[in-house]
């Protein structure tokens, strides 16, 4: 048997493996951007198929059902307009009070709706792909949320797509505050189960923490990546080890990311 092709192939693979494992984060991100371009035709095809399917489904919907939906949406719109009026009044009051106290004005966020177009092909990372990228103004570290609460943060940005690291992924550790006690901790990776990826761990609570199961968690706003006050989840159990410097807790996240199809990117 001629061994030459096997030696060349093995050498090439080992050389590439060494190069890939020693890539800097910047080079790695650039290489991924280039490689992702091979998937663009498939993303476009999927988008076209979904759009066509939506048109067909809309055409098949009976007129009676559509009229009922319009009626229901009009009713909801009126309720939301009333609530918006109340919120705007509170916002003005809040702004005026902040001015009197000489506090810095809160930054405003523009939410932008986007679809989830893909999920991480490996089991050991929790991330999704959304179909908004730099062309739409998306930048790394922008918060991503759903109507129920925080989903994660933008991890990588391409021209028309971005990767979002979900809560529970090692790349998405965030600072949260327990509403009842005011204590802060860090949401970390792991703690989930196969069928319930919404379980994560809360680390670095004070040793004498007064937190209890059922307490609500919100983003703390520390680090200035996430705005303060976005719902994150609630405590399910608090474990205080005797003699330990910190307390750990289990958290059930407000959002089950495995069931999401659309998310909001918060743009400043």
């Amino acid at each position, binding site marked *: 048997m001629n061994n030459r092709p*096997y030696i060349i*192939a093995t050498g090439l693979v080992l050389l590439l493996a060494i190069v*890939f494992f020693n890539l800097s984060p910047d080079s790695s991100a650039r290489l991924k951007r280039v490689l992702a371009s091979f998937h663009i035709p498939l993303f476009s095809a999927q988008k076209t198929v979904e759009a066509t399917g939506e048109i067909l489904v809309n055409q098949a919907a009976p007129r009676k059902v559509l009229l009922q939906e319009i009626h229901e949406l009009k009713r909801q719109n009126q309720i939301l307009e009333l609530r918006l009026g109340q919120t705007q009044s509170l916002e003005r009051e809040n702004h005026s009070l902040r001015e009197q106290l000489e506090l810095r004005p809160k930054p405003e966020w523009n939410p932008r709706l986007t679809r989830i177009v893909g999920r991480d092909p490996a089991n050991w990372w929790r*991330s999704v792909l959304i179909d908004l990228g730099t062309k739409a103004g998306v930048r790394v570290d922008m918060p991503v949320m759903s109507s129920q609460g925080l989903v994660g943060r933008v991890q990588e940005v391409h021209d028309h797509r971005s990767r979002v690291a979900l809560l529970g992924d090692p790349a998405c550790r965030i600072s949260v505050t327990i509403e009842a006690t005011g204590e802060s901790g860090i949401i970390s990776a792991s703690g989930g*189960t196969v069928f319930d990826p919404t379980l994560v761990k809360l680390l670095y609570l004070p040793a004498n923490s007064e937190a209890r199961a059922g307490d609500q968690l919100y983003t703390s706003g520390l680090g200035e990546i996430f705005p303060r006050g976005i719902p994150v989840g609630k405590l399910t159990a608090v474990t205080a080890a005797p003699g330990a410097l910190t307390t750990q807790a289990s958290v059930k996240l407000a959002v089950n990311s*495995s069931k999401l199809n659309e998310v909001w990117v918060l743009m400043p």
Partner: protein
Amino acid sequence: MKGFFTLTILLTALTSIYAASAWHLPRQLTGAQLDPLPALMLVVALRAPISAVTALAIGGSLLQSALSSGPVGTSLVPLYALGLVVHLNAHSLSQYHIGPRFALGAIAGGVVPALTLSLLVLSGHEPLVGWFTLWQWSVGILGSGIFAVLFFPLLEWLDQSVEEQPLAAPYDTTTRIVRGTRFHG
């Protein structure tokens, strides 16, 4: 023509990696992500030359990395190791019935994730690992067996489709020309 076959293998890898990422149903039902690459590598290693095995290991792992938040080329060495071992032992592996095809695919689906996870941990990364990993591994093994059963006929068909076919002669090959001194009017 073998170069064209390698290209079709890479296109199959691209499509199957994309489909596994974009089609959420298996993950929602089982809680595990299915990986088609180990089964594809098994079939390629049994049918194609070492150059195709190398191209699939490099191309497949890079295309998968493009959709993943993990480091680039994580599955390169595990995929190539599987391909090399299978390719060198191709003559002693049974591959003509569904049972052995499923079993080989399942073994491939068990070996590649285990090697990849070991490499990730040894290189200082922090993958999400827990008791649920055993379940995901089991589902991956089963899924890879099914992928192998599907990939065998697909690659056979692709190989036949791109294989060089003999051209049809533009004349009647049964006619005999007999040369001689006498003229046959």
